[in-house]
C-alpha cells in the first residue's frame, strides 16, 4: 500500500480520540451502526473511546451489556444477520476468550457456509495492553488466536490515523473484523484524516526506508521500533520498517520485496513468539525471498510464559527499543561498541520514566 498523502485538514489527536471520532462518524453516517459492550455508557467510556455517544445517539444505539461476553457477542452476530452493523467492545482480550465459540464458529463462517448469502458485518474492538501490574490474565496479547481463523479479518492499528481509518474500514466491511487496540497506542498522538475516511483493510505500511534490514512490527511495538530505527539511523544503519497493520488477510508482498533488497528480516510483535505473528511473516517471507536472504530471519516477541505482575519482573518481560536495536545491530553486524552506545542511549532516554506506564500522565490503575 502506498503511503497516504497528507490530507488537507489533517489534525493531530490521540488514537483514543481518533477511535471515538470514527465511531461517532460511522454512527452518524449509518443508522444500522450501533455500539455495545460492558462500560460503553459509563463515566469512563472505555478509556474515553465511547464517551458522549449515548447522549448523541440514544439508548437503542449505545447498549450497555451484562457481564456475559459469549451471549452478547452471539446477539451481535444475530443482529448483524438482520442487517445491523454492531461495534462490540471487549475491554480486555481475555474476556473475549469467553466468546470464542461465537466468533470462530458463527461470525467467521456464516458467510462461507451460506454460500455467500449471510453477512455478518460486526466490528469487534479488543483491547490489549501491558503495564501497571495487570498480571497474567489481564495483559495478554492473543492476536494469533484470531489471526489463525479463516473468515475473520484482523487488524492492529499502531497510530491515530490507522485507529480511525481502520475502524471506519472495519465498520464499512460486510464481514467480521477484529480490531486489536493496544492500550499504549491509545495514547499515541498523530495526524488523522478528516471526515469519513475509511482505510482498506489490507497491507503493511512502510514507515522508513533503508537498505540494510527489514523490520516488521505490530501495534505498539511499531512505536518501540521507530525509536530503535531512529537511533540506528544515526549510526548509518538503514532500516526498512513496516507496520504490519493487517494480520488477516495477510499481505507480505511489500515485505518480500524489501527483504529481496535488504536480505535481512526481523519481526517484532506484541504477542508470544511461538506460533505467533512473526512465525507466519517469516515463513512467507522466506518462501518469497529465499534466494536473497543473507541471514536467518529473527523474531522478537513475548517470552514463553505468563506475564508476572511485579514491575520488578515485568520490566524484563516486555521487549523495548533497546532490545530491538540490539537485535538489529547484531543482524547487520554493527561493531559491538557502536551497538552498545545506541542501546545505552535508548535505555537512557527512558530512565526518568517508569517502564510500566504508557504515558507520563498515567497514574494507574487501568
Amino acid at each position: 500500500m502506498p503511503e497516504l498523502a497528507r490530507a488537507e485538514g489533517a489534525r493531530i489527536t490521540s488514537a483514543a480520540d481518533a477511535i471515538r471520532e470514527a465511531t461517532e462518524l460511522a454512527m452518524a453516517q449509518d443508522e444500522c451502526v450501533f455500539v455495545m459492550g460492558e462500560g460503553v455508557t459509563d463515566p469512563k467510556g472505555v478509556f474515553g473511546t465511547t464517551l458522549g455517544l449515548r447522549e448523541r445517539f440514544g439508548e437503542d444505539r449505545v447498549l450497555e451489556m451484562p457481564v456475559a461476553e459469549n451471549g452478547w457477542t452471539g446477539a451481535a452476530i444475530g443482529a448483524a444477520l438482520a442487517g445491523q452493523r454492531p461495534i462490540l467492545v471487549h475491554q480486555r482480550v481475555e474476556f473475549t476468550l469467553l466468546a470464542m465459540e461465537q466468533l470462530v464458529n458463527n461470525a467467521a463462517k456464516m458467510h462461507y457456509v451460506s454460500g455467500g448469502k449471510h453477512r455478518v458485518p460486526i466490528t469487534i474492538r479488543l483491547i490489549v495492553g501491558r503495564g501497571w501490574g495487570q498480571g497474567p490474565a489481564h495483559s495478554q496479547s492473543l492476536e494469533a488466536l484470531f489471526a489463525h481463523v479463516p473468515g475473520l479479518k484482523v487488524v492492529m492499528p499502531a497510530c491515530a490515523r490507522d485507529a480511525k481509518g481502520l475502524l471506519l474500514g472495519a465498520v464499512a466491511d460486510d464481514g467480521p473484523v477484529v480490531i486489536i487496540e493496544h492500550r499504549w497506542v491509545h495514547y499515541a498522538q498523530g495526524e488523522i484524516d478528516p471526515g469519513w475516511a475509511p482505510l482498506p483493510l489490507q497491507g503493511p505500511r512502510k514507515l522508513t526506508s533503508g537498505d540494510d534490514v527489514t523490520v516488521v512490527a505490530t501495534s505498539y511495538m511499531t512505536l518501540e521500533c521507530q525509536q530503535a530505527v531512529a537511533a540506528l539511523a544515526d549510526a548509518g544503519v538503514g532500516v526498512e520498517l513496516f507496520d504490519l497493520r493487517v494480520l488477516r488477510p495477510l499481505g507480505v508482498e511489500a515485505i518480500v520485496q524489501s527483504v529481496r533488497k535488504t536480505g535481512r528480516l526481523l519481526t517484532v510483535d506484541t504477542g508470544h513468539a511461538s506460533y505467533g505473528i512473526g512465525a507466519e511473516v517469516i515463513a512467507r517471507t522466506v518462501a518469497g525471498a529465499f534466494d536473497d536472504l543473507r541471514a536467518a530471519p529473527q523474531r522478537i516477541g513475548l517470552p514463553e510464559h505468563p506475564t508476572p505482575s511485579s514491575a520488578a519482573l515485568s520490566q524484563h518481560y516486555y521487549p523495548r527499543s533497546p532490545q530491538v536495536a540490539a537485535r538489529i545491530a547484531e543482524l547487520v553486524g554493527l561493531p559491538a561498541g557502536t551497538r552498545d552506545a545506541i542501546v545505552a542511549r535508548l535505555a537512557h532516554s527512558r530512565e526518568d520514566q517508569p517502564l510500566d506506564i504508557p504515558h507520563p500522565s498515567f497514574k494507574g490503575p487501568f
Partner: protein
Amino acid sequence: MSSPHEMAPRATMMQTVVGPDERLALLTAMIRVRRIEERIAKEYPRGQMRCPVHLSIGQEAAAVGACAVLRRHDKITSTHRCHAHYLAKGGDLQAMIAELHGRASGCCGGRGGSMHLFDDDAGVVASVPIVGGNVPLGVGLALAAKQRRDGSVAAVFFGDGALEEGVVHESANLAATLRLPVVFVLENNLYSVYTRLEQRQPPRSMSRFADAHGMPAMEIDGNDVLSVRGAMLHAVTRARRGDGPSLLVAHTYRQLEHCGPADDDHLGYRPAGELSRWAARCPIQRLCNEMLEHDEIDESALDTIEATIAREIDEAFVAALAAPFPAAHTIAEAIHA
C-alpha cells in the same frame, strides 16, 4: 407426562379455540414433516446424504405448533436438529434435500449439510450445530427487530441439553433486561445424545429457568400441537406488544437415534417401555384421531394429503439427485463478504 422432573403447577392446557381449517393445516404440516423425515431415514443408508442427520420424528408438534403462530417475516434460529423447524417455518424443501445431498442447489450450496439449514425468505435465519449457539443469535434478531422497529419477533428453538449451556442463561438475561421480542422454545425430549436428563440436571421444573430471568414460562405437553400453538400465541402476542421474552417448555420425545436414521432402543440407554409409551403418544395420531372423531377429516382426505406430500417429496429427492455438485473451483469463493 412421563418426565421424572416436577412439572410446574402453572402447566395448563394452553389450547385456545382453533378452527377446523387451522387444525387441518397443523395436521398437514405435521404429516409433511414426518414423511420427509421418514424418507430421509429410508434413503440415508444408501450413502448419498454424506452428512450427519438428526431427525425429529416424534417431536413434530413443537415445531409445527410454534411456527403456526409466526408470520413469514418473523424469524427463527435452530439447532443440529433443525429439519422440522426449517420446514414448519416454511423453508424450501428442495433446497433442504439438495443440501443434505451436498448439491450446489442446496440452501447452503452444499457447504453446510443438514445442521446448517436456513432460508432467509422464510425467516429461518440460522441453524447451528453447536449446542446453545443459536440462542444468542435469536436474541440478536430480536434486538435488531426492536432497533429497526420492524414489528417482527424471533423464536429460538433449543433442547433440554442446551439449557445447560451458559450462553442460554446469558441470552435469557439479555433478552429480559432489554425486553426483547423473542420466544425461547425449549423442547425437552429427555435426552442429550444418550444421556438422560437426571444425569445432567437436578430435579426441578424447567420453567423456573424463566423465573430466574423474570420472564413468564408456559410448560406444555409438547406432543399436543394445539397446546403448543396456544402457548406460543400467548408468548408471541406478548413479544409483539413489546412486553419482552417468554419461555415455552414443551415436553416431548425423540423416537429415533440421536444422529442417524435408525431405531436405537437396543442400546439400552432408554428405560424399557419408554419408547413405546411415547410412540403411543404420537402428536400426529393424536390430532388426527381427534379430527376423525369430530368428522373434521376423513380417510380419503388424508389419502389426498399423503399423496400430495409424497409427490412433493419424490420431486425433492429426484431434483436433489439430479442436481450438480458444487464445482471444485468454487471451494474458495465467498470467504469474506
